[in-house]
């Protein structure tokens, strides 16, 4: 086959452009359709209870923000570990699950004794603390057992070990605690809505957003202001040089895993607050999505992970309605895509794939993915 660079490139590029354009078309056409439907109902009925009224969008937005802040917290662990070891910690989502699941037993005990609602803030803090401690411990064991011995191995090897660790954790928890869903106890003061400036916001979601913003701020300060944080950044810039400068790389790696684990553990409890249940497999999809968030924001980049998480959360919550509900295809979907919410994961994964293909450096990151050997 004697084709020149430009000819061959154009075949791939045409394909990629077609991919890009079709996604764009779905987004634009779907959004237009949705807005049109929204306007019509607003004009004729002028009823704010309609399916596309502003407060509906606001609800979706807040839900997306709370979901996204959980993703962001998990994504921090991915991004920090990747920054330092250039390795995808595939089991990170299960660290998140482990934190949530273990803390569930404390929350349930509090619930039985009534402590949960007697002093809700203290009990929430205790549950969060336990989740963070467990998750940190598991992250550290993971690092010690599954990753550290492989630090010099070819890149595929630690990834496979991580996949193994992920399954091990999931099914260990399944063995310990059973395969069913466990209902997380509810804090009474977090049920219902708070009305802020005339807008009702679900309390749990507000708590989740506030708690994760606080945690992220604390973590960001730690990384940017403390000596250990500086060492972490140095190691992620260049591991070899940092170790020559007298930084104890092993210690930095352990701390990185620890902090990532703690953030994931806290995220686990917050996630359980919203969805009110835990399950041994609950970490898998949030884990993948948090990784998407980390890639979206530019892997290795801490603010990027936060922004990526929030962005993904909002996209996932608003997207199905905005892009798909109103996506009318004559002859096939005269009234838009049925059950669009089923496809929210498709939206998330499409975003993941598109980011990896078109902008592996993410929104804020450097080009790590295509870095040549």
């Amino acid at each position, binding site marked *: *086959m004697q084709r020149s660079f430009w000819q*061959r490139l154009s075949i*791939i590029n045409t*394909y*990629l452009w077609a*991919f890009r354009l079709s996604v764009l078309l779905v987004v634009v056409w779907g959004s237009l359709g949705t807005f049109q439907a929204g306007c019509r109902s607003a004009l004729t009925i002028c009823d704010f209870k309609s399916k596309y009224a502003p407060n509906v969008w606001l609800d979706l937005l807040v839900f997306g923000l709370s979901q996204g802040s959980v993703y962001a917290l998990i994504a921090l662990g991915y991004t920090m570990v990747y920054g330092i070891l250039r*390795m*995808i910690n595939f089991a990170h989502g299960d660290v998140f699950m482990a934190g949530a699941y273990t803390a569930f*037993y404390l929350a349930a005990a509090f619930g039985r004794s009534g402590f949960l609602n007697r002093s809700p803030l203290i009990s929430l803090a205790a549950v969060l603390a336990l989740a963070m401690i467990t998750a940190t411990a598991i992250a550290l064991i993971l690092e010690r*057992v*599954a990753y550290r*011995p*492989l630090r010099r*191995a070819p*890149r*595929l*090897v*630690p*990834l*496979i*070990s991580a*996949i*193994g*660790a*992920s*399954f*091990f*954790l*999931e*099914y*260990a928890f*399944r*063995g*310990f*605690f*059973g395969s069913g869903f466990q209902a997380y106890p509810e804090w009474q003061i977090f049920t219902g809505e708070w009305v802020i400036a005339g807008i009702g916001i679900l309390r749990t979601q507000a708590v989740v957003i506030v708690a994760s913003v606080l945690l992220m701020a604390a973590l960001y300060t730690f990384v940017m202001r403390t000596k250990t944080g500086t060492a972490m950044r140095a190691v992620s810039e260049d591991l070899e040089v940092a170790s020559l400068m007298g930084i104890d790389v092993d210690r930095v790696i352990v701390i990185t895993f620890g902090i990532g684990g703690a953030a994931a553990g806290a995220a686990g409890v917050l996630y359980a607050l919203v969805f009110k249940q835990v399950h041994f497999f609950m970490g898998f999809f949030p884990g*993948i999505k948090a*990784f*998407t968030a980390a*890639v979206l924001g530019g892997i290795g980049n801490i603010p990027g992970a936060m922004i990526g998480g929030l962005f993904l959360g909002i996209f996932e919550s608003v997207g199905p309605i905005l892009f*798909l509900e109103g996506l009318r295809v004559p002859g096939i979907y005269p009234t838009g*895509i*049925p*059950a*669009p919410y*089923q*496809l929210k*994961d*498709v939206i998330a*994964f*499409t975003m*993941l*794939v598109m980011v*990896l*293909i078109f902008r*592996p450096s993410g929104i804020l990151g450097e080009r790590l*993915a*295509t870095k*040549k*050997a």
Partner: protein
Amino acid sequence: MRTDRGSWGKVISGGLIFGGAAAFVSLAGMVEALGVREIVIGVIDLGRLLLLLIGLGAGYQAARRGIGGALTALARGLLAGAAAGVGLSALLVLASVVNLRGMFINASPTLLEIISFGRGTAGVPLVIAAGAVAGALGAVATLLPGAVRGPLGAGVTVTIVVGLFQELLQIILQEGGIRSAIRQFIFVPEGLPPRGALGVFLVVLVVSAVWRSRQPVVRGWILKRPPPQQRLVRLLGLLLAVAVALLLPLAGGLFISQVLVLVGLYTLMGLGLNLEVGFAGLLDLGFVAFFAIGAYTVGLLTSTGQYGIAHWSFWAAMPVALVVSLIAGFLFGLPILRIRGDYLAIATLGFGEIIRLLALSEALRPWFGGSQGVLFVPKPIIGGFEFSGPAQIYYITLASSVLIAFVAARLRDSRLGRAWMAMREDEDVAEAMGINLVNVKLLAYGIGGAFAGMGGAIFAVLLGSIFPHSFSLLISINVLALIIVGGMGSLPGVVVGSLFLVGLPELLREFSDFRFLVYGAALIIMMQVKPEGLWPAAMVRRELHKEEPVGVVAEEPAAVERVEA
């Protein structure tokens, strides 16, 4: 005898880790669930065997690591085993103080009874003593010369396997004069009695000892033959394997056929993924998508139900399924050509999930049946013979696996195969050698996908219906695990891997709950201990056990040094 504290401390902490592992498998439910399966009637069941093996392991590793004479080794093994016993006893004590069951669903009275030999907390000294004995036995194993340890190990292993699969063996040995005589000699209807176990053990011991002394002679004899005769020996071995593969479902009945079909399907997928990961170095976590595409193609083309579009026969639909999954491989590969390394794993995972979610979705239900799936996929028929069940479909699977393995072997040794491996080793240099990365990568995705599509096609007629739930990510992980355990890039490894990771858990049904737990542990351990797999590709084996240390990159002397004479 010189002893240093650190070393003995390490023995104890190592033993405690093993004790922790024993407590872990107990709490995870393995001991109790596996306890249902008796290995030797009235002597030991699989759950207790697991605990015993952990004790042996504690002693073995403690004795092997130490320096000093036989007595020291024995003492280390004893101590480590006792420490493991202490670790497990902690669970007993804990269970008597708090209600563990509120949290750990498996901390049942039955479990505690198994662990404590039915004595509750009073059994603690017994547990520690048992641990010590097991540890000492483990230590003894390190002291025995290979000529003794080999046959002994073989005897024990075979006895365990016979006990484990007694049901199956009894079915196979059901009829016929000699067969039923063997069965009556070894088994009782309930399983393997101590008498039979001893018999099996002794026979294997003797055979193994004899083989051990004769093996070099036999091997030498074979190696001295001229190449055509050597090839004949290899061919005979292959024919024997094929004969066994052909006869197994006839002897083993429906259940074994089902298991074998599954093994065959996973072998097909494993061969495909092996081509992508093992040969070309392209990690693919969305591999199940091709399996799904093959299944849906056959389903839609042949189904007599509401979603069927053509009512073709299986034989007409299968080649189409192959071509469709080949093309799907190209289309799937095109956008991700420039993604490298572990990003590729995540991108492919995303693709695989997108395919599954779309097949599941309400939106595409008019074509793919949504979560209800495609029903009424007819069985293949050849000239009036209907491949009606697993026992018949097994032969389709076997034939395809043999064919595909042959194709994979041909490709491996071809120009394309070398190009794949070069790309796996160093993408940039491969391109500089004149290899068109685009073509080569797309072919890897396409051909690998076609192999899996073939598996999917058979899967569709096996079940007679297709549900999107069958195509979860776990399948991709399963396939990846099996090619890693078997040995990446190795064709026999794929078969070995699917026998171990698919066949074994299916045969031990009690075990299936713990399948992924064991997979996980196996992957972690394999990566550290035996990254080349159980049956490594000859090349990889050499690579991972390098005989001579080599510096590939030479130190570059400073330029000035060379300029100044």
